[in-house]
């Protein structure tokens, strides 16, 4: 019920931006920048995130004429941001196999441990662990577990198969478990 109403309001806002109504584009920025910055930070790292957020909004300003209100403006901006991040990571890492390097070669840690190894997980420790994942696995993990995309959508975005997306996600989770468990041991099991 809210969807079409929201998209209508978004379209009206996009039209106000195109008509150069003062403050309209700033309204778009203020409403969506925090979510986009969160995902960009997690995908490419904090250092490059500011440049990519800036690039996302400059690109949005150029392309607002293409927005027809079929989806929420937030979703449209999100696609723009993630595509920029994917291009950025691809240009840095090259092929998919290089983007997931370091994850495929390692044995799965799941079967070798007995019982749960994680206590209470600190969110900041998790943020740090996510940053330590190889770029490809990080993309799948953030898009699926943090942003709620389905494997089919991720597969389309990253030009991989559904199966690859599922296996990368599982390996990413195992790696995070491993890193968080190691951190727990190193910090004396405080968390």
């Amino acid at each position: 019920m809210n969807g079409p109403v929201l998209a209508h309001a978004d379209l009206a806002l996009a039209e106000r931006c195109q008509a150069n109504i003062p403050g309209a584009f700033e309204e778009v920025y203020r409403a969506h920048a925090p979510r986009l910055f969160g995902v960009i930070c997690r995908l490419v790292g904090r250092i490059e995130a500011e440049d990519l957020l800036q690039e996302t909004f400059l690109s949005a300003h150029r392309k607002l004429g293409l927005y027809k209100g079929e989806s929420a403006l937030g979703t449209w901006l999100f696609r723009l941001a993630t595509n920029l991040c994917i291009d950025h990571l691809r240009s840095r890492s090259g092929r998919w196999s290089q983007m997931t390097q370091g994850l495929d070669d390692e044995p799965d840690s799941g079967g070798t441990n007995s019982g749960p190894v994680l206590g209470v997980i600190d969110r900041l420790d998790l943020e740090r662990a996510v940053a330590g994942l190889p770029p490809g696995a990080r993309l799948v993990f953030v898009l699926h577990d943090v942003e709620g995309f389905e494997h089919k959508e991720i597969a389309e975005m990253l030009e991989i198969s559904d199966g690859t997306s599922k296996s990368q996600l599982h390996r990413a989770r195992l790696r995070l478990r491993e890193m968080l468990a190691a951190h727990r041991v190193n910090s004396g099991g405080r968390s």
Partner: protein
Amino acid sequence: MVSCRDVEPQLSLLIDGLLSADEESRVRTHVSGCHSCRGLLADLERLRVVTRQMGPIAPPEHVWLEVAGQIRLTHPSAPVASSSGRPALQWIGLAAALVLVTVGVYFFQRTKAIEAPGVVTTARQPVRGLAAED
């Protein structure tokens, strides 16, 4: 007999609700009797709960200023920022304008003074007079 090696990759699919009823039953039967797989499943579920709390991050303010500046450069007619939303920037703009006017007036008067040297001479004469008295 299902082994841990077979079940372990399916634990992620289990917590995401992506297994068929038959597969789920097979995995759950194994997990209920396997301490290691039960531990892994508990950890994956815990990880998922905390992951859901990873929310938005506020970007630094200068990012918007840079975006607005870039748009102004490429589209000079586009007023991207609201006129009332940035009082601090308005004060900075006003201060900059004031400095420009002051500098302008200073240089204008200086130019005028150079063009009329007699005025300068007259103004300095009392000082010379004082020096002579000393």
